[in-house]
């Protein structure tokens, strides 16, 4: 991020990403709000790759300790977020296959 072009590129990317997030989410019905929140919780688990790089490029023991903890936390975010979301959606899957009567 040393030159001005990179800065503006970043702004473009951020703007488009924010818009994408807004549009994709605004169409989700209320009944799926929990899996949606849990799913987005899983998606920010991408922090894991950052933590891996931080630990992988760490040189001092202090950096290594912090990086190590960050990778643990990031990995828990990824697997936990995935399993929770998957379990929730599995139930919707099941309940959705039963044809609704009446209503």
């Amino acid at each position, binding site marked *: 991020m040393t030159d001005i072009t990179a800065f503006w590129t970043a702004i473009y990317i951020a703007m488009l990403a924010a818009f994408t997030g807004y549009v994709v989410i605004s169409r989700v019905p209320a009944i799926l709000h929990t899996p949606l929140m849990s799913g987005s919780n899983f998606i920010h688990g991408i922090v894991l790759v950052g933590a891996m790089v931080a630990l992988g490029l760490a040189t001092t023991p202090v950096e290594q300790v912090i990086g190590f903890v960050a990778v643990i936390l990031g990995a828990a975010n990824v697997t936990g977020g995935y399993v929770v979301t998957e379990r929730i959606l599995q139930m919707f899957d099941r309940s959705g296959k*039963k044809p609704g009567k009446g209503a």
Partner: protein
Amino acid sequence: MADLSWLIEPVYIVTIFFFILGMQRMSHPLTARSGIVWAGAAMLIATLVTFFTPNLTNITLIAIAIVIGGGFGYIAAKRVAMTNMPQMIALYNGMGGGAAAGISAVALLGITTATTGSLAVVGGLIGAVSFTGSIIAFLKLQGWMRPRPITFPGQQIINMVVLALAIISGVLVIVQPAWLPFSVAMYLPLFFILSLGFGLLMTLPIGGADMPVVISMYNAFTGLAVALDGFSFATPNYAMVVAGIIVGAAGSLLTLNMARAMNRSLTNVFFGAFGATEEKGLDLKGSMKSIEVDDVAILLAYANKVVIAPGYGMAVAQAQQKVKELADLLESRNVQVKFAIHPVAGRMPGHMNVLLAEAGVAYDHLFDRDEVNPEFPGTDVVLVIGANDVVNPAAHRQGSPLFGMPILDVEQAKNVIVLKRGQGKGFAGIENDLFYRDNTRMLYGDAQETVGKLVQALKKL
């Protein structure tokens, strides 16, 4: 090993594509599950390809940490009961925030430019706040901490001072003015301690009933922190930037929706210490009238239309299976059954939908507040199962702390049966007028047990 680092960027782009596709597919119940599977596969390849990062060392340490963290996340998430999902989401969200704060710390310990350093400071602050804040939310929801707001005199001033000091120390980490005696080694820990402390202090005064808003906001925070941290590397990690911002936007939207569902501003949620105060001079007329299971069964059996309004109490009692059984039984007797779902019933957005889906209730039986409210005057019996604040008509009365919150207008139905464990108040700690109405009867007991008895009684009719 051959240099495969050229693979990283293309794989990250594919990852982001599948993240967006996954969230897109989550917009319908039938495709939602494939959505998370796509996103999961993408996450896996993104993690693997990251091992090809040039000059990556400490690979054994990375692998060990992934096994520890991943193992914990997997096992804890598999074991937890569905009713405890809100706190698990809060916990994993906090961990993501903590990881983001850690990345910021490592970045700030290394050599940074003013730009990347500033972004890392902001990311670190938000990540740290999300970390401790989510943990407090987790503890409150798990019941390991009193869920009622914790307040003390001067709280908001203290919170603001802590935040201001955190920001100042963050600025000092970047600019390091020569006239100040201390170095980065001094300001950096101070910055993180203050940031973590602020997350803690900010969440303490928030009550259990506001947790849907809080969890969803910290989710947005973590997303934002991850996005900012994406810039803290020598070459920006655009996968983090894009995924983080998408989550930030999604979380913000959801947070505002939740706050709107309670007719409260975010300021009110975060600084209102909701539920800590009592409405004074309230004189409720009438008395609570209780009813027996058999009488309720008869009411239900000969009704044309029954609406079930579940709340957090149903989750606590794990009554959803029995409730589904009851609904099926009524439908087999040609009683029309609908579920009225308040957007903030329970402890996370859509909490009731998840539990009822778990029990196998088809989602076309579930109705939003706005859809179902006009139907209450034509409803014979409303079963309120463990819900309190979301059906409290005090919301229509000026001066009540709940005033203005859109509620389920169950009091308009011919009969209202409230299933409740005891005579206590809701999470908001406010008396419920509904319980004193002439058309309301209280059915005391554990929700699962009571609904079970109802099912038995109905079968005999």
